[in-house]
């Protein structure tokens, strides 16, 4: 089922998506309509064009594919399902995400994965094919963020500034020959070992499959693992303890 979104405002477009009887929907000619598929649990939606802010906010199991770029707050507070973006995303992608997965072929803007969290069987995953803007994983509390830096130079800083500021849970993986970034004291950085790589193997495979990227183009650089620094990171921040 194809829905031509030209000249439809976000409310009407969302109404048509929600009431559509087909489970497989293509939205064509999208231009800035917000909140697409918000809270949706059971459809497969392909979006052609540029969806507006808060694409798949509170997503509850539906699968979204964007043939193009996504704007800000993609997957805001999503709970389950998947968002696949063939281009890049704007700022605050995966804001407070608590489940499901986001795969981005290109770059992510500022604050990707801010406040990401995990709980029981909920475990959010975000894979960024290119580079990430500043404040990646700010206040991260759970889940995993992977930055591949495809197309970047060996010594390029692919996570910009203030990565992992306030991080207190979860893991960030960065693929780079050398890590040319400065990290805050709340973050512990080490090179990934076999066990670490095993944990993200399925996500890398899925990325390669989705975007037809040969696996060996990813395996040629090491990964670095960022976790919260557990040496009482907030010592003296609020009280003397």
């Amino acid at each position, binding site marked *: 089922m194809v829905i031509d979104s030209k000249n439809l*405002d*976000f409310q009407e477009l969302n109404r048509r998506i929600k009431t559509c009887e087909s489970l497989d929907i293509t939205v064509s000619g999208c*231009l*800035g309509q*917000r909140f697409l598929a918000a809270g949706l649990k059971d459809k497969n939606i392909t979006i052609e*064009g*540029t969806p*507006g*802010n808060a694409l798949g906010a509170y997503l509850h199991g539906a699968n979204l594919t964007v043939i193009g*770029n996504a*704007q*800000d707050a993609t997957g805001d507070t999503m709970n389950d399902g998947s968002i696949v973006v063939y281009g890049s995303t*704007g*700022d605050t992608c995966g804001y407070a995400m608590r489940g499901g997965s986001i795969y981005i072929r290109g770059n992510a*803007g*500022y604050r990707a994965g801010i406040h990401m969290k995990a709980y029981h069987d909920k475990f959010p995953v975000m894979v960024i094919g290119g580079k990430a*803007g*500043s*404040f990646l994983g700010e206040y991260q509390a759970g889940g995993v963020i992977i930055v591949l830096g495809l197309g970047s130079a060996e010594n390029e800083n692919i996570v*910009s*500034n203030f990565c992992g500021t306030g991080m207190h849970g979860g893991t960030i993986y960065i693929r780079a020959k050398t890590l040319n970034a*400065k990290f805050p004291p709340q973050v512990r950085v080490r090179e990934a070992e076999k066990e670490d790589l095993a944990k993200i193997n399925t996500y890398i495979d899925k990325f390669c499959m989705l975007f037809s990227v040969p696996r060996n183009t990813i395996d040629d650089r090491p990964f670095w693992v960022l976790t919260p620094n557990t040496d009482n990171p907030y010592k003296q921040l609020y009280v003397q303890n």
Partner: protein
Amino acid sequence: MKKEGEIRIPSGCAIAGVFAKDGKNINGGLIVRAMTTMHERSNGLGGGFAGYGIYPQYKDLYALHVFYDNMTARSECEKFIDEMFEIVNLSKIPIRKSPKITDEPLIWRYFVTPHQNKLADSQLDEKEYMVRCVIRINTKYTGSYVFSCGKNMGVFKAVGYPEDVGEFYRLDEYEGYSWTAHGRYPTNTPGWWGGAHPFSMLDYSIVHNGEISSYDANRRFIEMFGYKCTLLTDTEVITYIIDFLLRHEKLTLEETAAVIAAPFWDTIERKTPDEAARYKYLRNVFSSLLITGPFSILLGFEGGMMALNDRLKLRSMVVGEKGDMTYFASEECAIRMMEPNVDNLWSPRGGEPVIVRLNGGVNHGN
């Protein structure tokens, strides 16, 4: 009407710009259409546009755009304008009546040049003379408000959604090499016509999405130099800061960006020694002009445009290019509305200015 503190309005605002480096004429309708894609970023309490190169027949004259509350205010203010300037042409600004734009003030336009004897007596340069006259009207003449006073440019603004404001001012009948636009979602002050964006002083115009938390610190400093912040909105103070740094202090645009969106000390430390010294100097000398809090702005000026985000990039901004055309917007969709097939598209980093200028500089046609 609920008062300050009784109501919480989530912040939004939309900005967009388009610039032709080859000086080609762009119809005002293009930027109006771009704003329709970002409708939800505004709440109908303000919209506005600035166009450059739109008055080629009067390009050497200052174009005053004035709101009057009533005819009494107009006649009082016109006496002053007549006293200070030679008026070459005056008329109402043509509008298209619409049920979507109501309670409009009287909206007049004057093409003027300072009386040469008055200018000589004042011992001021021409631009300073203009600025002082405009500030005088806006602070002393109740019911009169000059909202645009540059050469070969003009601001058009109102209470309403931006697309309706564009229609109201018949922007499809204007052409220029540069346009900026704003859709307002006021958070701290009630929406009124003068408070809509762009704010302008001479040929500098600002559209702004955000809310600066350094307003009072900035205001106290800038008012020492003769500016009067009459509107209690943060964008007005940004406009005066820009005018002060560029026109008075003769800073470059890049230096101005390094003052108002100064990098963190921590970031400065990691620059080369020369660069670090330059950033340190600017931060120290103009510390009161650091603008904190979220903002994305577009600065229009004669022959160019600058886009700038706050250093933490708490508001969005996308830039696109196609040949000699450069497009700016809060959201990519607005750029794609103007040009579906841009050659490249990117989001500038926080505090990193993007500056475009006319190829070969400003053509005065003399």
